[in-house]
């Protein structure tokens, strides 16, 4: 029988075993595309814009130039209310690089009003300005929220500071 063993390393022996460290230095500059150019212009003006499908009626937020459900081009722009309902919410104690946050934040998905069915809807991931306890008790689920806009806006998703609770379910 051939020996198929592999060799586990503890963290210390891994440090000692490292022969090469590399750090890719690419910086990505992303062009916004057709749909997001208008979307970001809207955010700068304090508006949430979407594109409406002539066939299924779904308002796409974030907007798209196509309806991925009907495979049709989208050309009709509509303004969506900056209010919606909390579809889901979580309390984040860690961020992108697994660094622990000093103060936990609440993040969730907001189901915006205007179109959709049980399964599909216009929606955004964003911060929700509420207490972690409201998430842990699930009280936040289904709450009505409204965007709190930054006073200085530059055409970015961060032009919305967070969504604030208007009324509880």
């Amino acid at each position, binding site marked *: 029988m*051939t020996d*198929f*063993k*592999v*060799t*586990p*390393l*503890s*963290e210390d022996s*891994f440090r000692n*075993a490292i022969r090469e460290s*590399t750090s*890719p230095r690419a910086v*990505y500059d*992303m062009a*916004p*595309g057709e749909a*997001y150019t208008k*979307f*970001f212009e809207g955010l700068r003006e304090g508006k949430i814009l979407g594109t409406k499908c002539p066939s299924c009626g779904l308002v*796409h*937020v*974030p907007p*798209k130039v196509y309806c*991925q459900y009907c495979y049709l081009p989208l050309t009709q722009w509509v303004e969506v209310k900056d209010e919606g309902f909390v*579809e*889901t*919410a*979580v*309390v*984040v*104690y*860690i*961020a*992108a*690089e*697994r*660094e622990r946050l000093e103060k936990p934040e609440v*993040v*969730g*998905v907001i189901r915006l009003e205007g179109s959709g069915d*049980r*399964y*599909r*809807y*216009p*929606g*955004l*991931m*964003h*911060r929700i300005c509420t207490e*972690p306890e409201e*998430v*842990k008790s*699930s009280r936040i*689920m289904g709450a009505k929220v409204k965007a709190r806009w930054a006073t200085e806006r530059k055409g*970015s*998703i*961060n032009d919305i500071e967070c969504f604030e609770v208007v009324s509880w379910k």
Partner: protein
Amino acid sequence: MRPNINVKNRVAVVGAGLTLFRRRLMETPQELSWIAARQALDQAGLDFNDIDCVVSGSAPDAFDGVHMKGEYYVEGVANGKPHVRVFVGGGTGVFVPVAAWWHVASGLCRKVLVLAEEKMSSASRPHPQAVFKHIWDPLVEKPLNPNLIWIFAMEMHRYMYRCGVRKEDIALVSVKNKRNALDHPSAQAAAKITVDDVLNSEMLVYPVNRLDVSPVSDGAGAMVMVSEEWANRLTDNPIWVEGVGFNLDSTNWTNRDLGYPVYLKRAAEMAYRLAGIENPMKEIDVAEPYDPFDYKELHHMEGLGLCPPCKAAEVTKEGLTQRDGDLPTSPSGGLLGVGNPIAAAGIMKAIEIFWQLRGEAGARQVKKDVVTGLAQAWGDLMQVGTVVVMRR
């Protein structure tokens, strides 16, 4: 059960191999691939020279830190042969046997080496999770500085809310799978733990605690898949791949209800149609639903139609998913127990079904007689489902 008449060649698995799964292994991706491949060939009674084609899979290049890593890690196992690498995020490990299936089923290749490799430890600093920063939408999501676990926590909370499931019900999956893994020779995260251990472990993103999540791992796995003619020549005990399914939902995950995995329902329907399965609840004897998080096993059991929507937690609580239950799930120990070297973890689940159906799972062998089994994986931005159905 009706025979599958839609393919040119029936396809069988005749051998499998798996390395240890560990947080850090000394071996390079090339060596891990070589070792797993030789194990699988050994069991099949074949040599590299016998192999017509190689199908491999691995998750983002950014983990191993080598772009074109497919061509890199297969160096020792695919030289001079047709090779293709497939990649559908976390769904990759089960997509590899799916892609290998059509290589054989079409008549294009007769003996295929099926390989999955992952070496996450190379993406060492600040943490392998940092690699996932680059799978989000760069314009509307990444500026919020998200960690990948956020998205799963959002799905888990939506599932809990929609189905009335509690964290302690979900933790039972972690307890079961980590305990099952105590019998798996490759296991990295096997343990005897309690529901309280899960609830009291480090809070990462509510509702996800540390022990709700599978670990970061290195490892590789391989299978040999061949045509019917070769299967009958090589073994008295071939395991037939009778159904394959794969399906993609939108990357726009903020626009759909996360409580039910539609992408998986569609993938499963495709696999069941091919395999002639009309009632998966009755016809699937043993399953390896994808469990990188404990809630995902439940969510996926529902998407696979192994129980009605919102009922998986109840089924688990009643003990039906234990190895001696009516519907054993993740008898291997799953990703939660064996470990999660992404693509290799998916193929590990397919390999477990192969071993279970052969009666070669040793201490992990489920109690009931098993004829039909299923392995499944899921990935990308919660949008892709991959399924294989196998029969003895």
